[in-house]
């Protein structure tokens, strides 16, 4: 099998596929991942903040039913498998993007799957902030908004960066799955060539590239988080 896989003909074909499609695929993967992460954070971060400040003993308690509803929605979205979520929200995706297939359309389910995750990890990041710092800010006359923007978020920046990195790598993984609904990128190539056409060499290359991308993002994110953290020096 290995011989067959590495035969000259296979190698030549793989090379030509790689040359003709990989650059676009990498670009699509990056584009989808980054845009989806951006929107997931845009929605998830404020929700995470609300989860922390809105609870009963938080700095700005919100009605208990609202908090329960929010927690419920987040838990439900988090427990639906991505493949099924993708199909379930077709109507919503069509509403927003006008279509349910293609690279752009795949961003919608990715955001839907990732923002509840972002909300939860933001929540846990913000909970790490020392209660004493919040008490201090309150004693100096901070408004709720000032506590959020000047204490809660800035104090948890290293942890937030680490968590956004985690989100990014997760989305990168999920984006490969969205190849099934025609989302572009390395995932689509891996599925099309590997699963449908038995071109394993191409699939391997695509997978290796995906792994490298995850590694690169992870290392960059960890390094950035560490550099930002003033507690370590």
């Amino acid at each position, binding site marked *: 099998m290995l011989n067959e896989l590495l035969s000259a003909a296979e190698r030549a074909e793989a090379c030509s596929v790689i040359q003709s499609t990989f650059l676009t695929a990498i670009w699509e993967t990056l584009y989808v991942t980054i845009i989806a992460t951006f929107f997931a954070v845009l929605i998830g971060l404020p929700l995470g903040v609300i989860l922390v400040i809105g609870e009963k003993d938080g700095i700005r308690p919100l009605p208990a039913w609202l908090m329960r509803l929010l927690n419920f929605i987040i838990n439900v979205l988090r427990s639906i498998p991505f493949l099924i979520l993708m199909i379930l929200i077709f109507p919503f995706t069509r509403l927003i993007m006008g279509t349910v297939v293609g690279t752009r359309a795949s961003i919608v389910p990715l955001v839907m799957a990732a923002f509840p995750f972002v909300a939860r990890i933001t929540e846990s990041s913000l909970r790490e902030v*020392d209660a*004493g*710092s919040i*008490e*201090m*800010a*309150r*004693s*100096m*006359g*901070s*408004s709720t908004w*000032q506590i959020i923007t*000047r*204490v809660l978020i*800035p*104090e948890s*920046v*290293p942890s937030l960066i680490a968590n956004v990195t985690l989100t990014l790598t997760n989305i990168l993984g999920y984006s490969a799955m969205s190849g099934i609904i025609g989302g572009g990128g390395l995932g689509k190539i891996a599925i099309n060539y590997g699963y449908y056409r038995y071109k394993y060499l191409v699939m391997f290359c695509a997978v290796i590239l995906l792994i490298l991308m995850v590694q690169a993002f992870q290392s960059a994110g960890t390094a950035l988080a560490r550099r*930002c*953290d*003033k*507690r*370590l*020096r």
Partner: protein
Amino acid sequence: MIELKKLSKSFTDADNTVHAVKEVDLTIEDGDIFGIIGMSGAGKSTLVRCINMLERPSEGDVLIDGVSLSSLSEKELREKRREIAMIFQSFNLLMQRNCLQNVCFPMELAGIRPSEARKKAKELLETVGLGDKVNAYPSQLSGGQQQRVAIARALATGPKVLLCDEATSALDPATTRQILDLIRDINRKYGITVIIITHQMSVVESICQHVAILDQGRVVEQGSVQDVFSDPVSAAAKALVFPEGYLDVLESGRKGSRYLRVVFDGSQATDTPLIAKMAVEKGIIANIAYASTREIGGRTFGSMLLSIEEKNHDFQEALAYFSDAPGVSCGEVMRDAE
């Protein structure tokens, strides 16, 4: 002037109610250094958090220069809190900001121009002796230095009152000394009223002018530090004033003798060998069971526990003898006082 009027705070949860502070009446004059002392769980932190309304009192009110804090709106209260700075046991510096940015924090809240805030912050760090640490992060500083930054930060908005909740409890004795000296200097330099919450009598003795003793949420005794120290009335005050070991002496004391506590002001009474004189003049032999000296507000006070045998009215005579001596106060200590 800060007035606490029948201030009470209770916490209620599912199955019980804790009365942390009960009907506290206190008046703290401008420029005073006022100590509030009590055992753990006495309600000190709750009381101090009521003073800046971080905790809304269940009953009663706090008046600052005649303004009732409970009548203020949330927004007015936030403004008011800029006049009531606070420092903490755990310093509570923002770990992701350097010293300068930490001191700038309250000025940012108040909307002071950044350039102006930075200038003021540098001056303040200079004042607290950290002019060279402007760019250091809290994790690079010792506890004492962190508390200095916190003090500089507390001064940034020009407060009238400084609340210190166990501000030196996390520090070693030498550093505690330095921080207390700094607080006293600030009190003198800026005329800020200081309220010091502590469980250590030594802290009260070294810088406070007045003290209130809190026991199970109530003020059981208050007055000038010298008065409370030399003549504690309440059991809680005695427990705090008498150093540890004092009560053990009483416990293990002999039957048939009574105990007399004698406190003398070092500036007036050290020249006379009182106990020897009493033995010669009255023929009363006093056994020194315990003795210590302390400094309160720059004056030395000595305190002794004498055991005197219960015969021929010796005890009454000794009591009378010490009561007449200048600069000496005394009283009997009951064995089962606690």
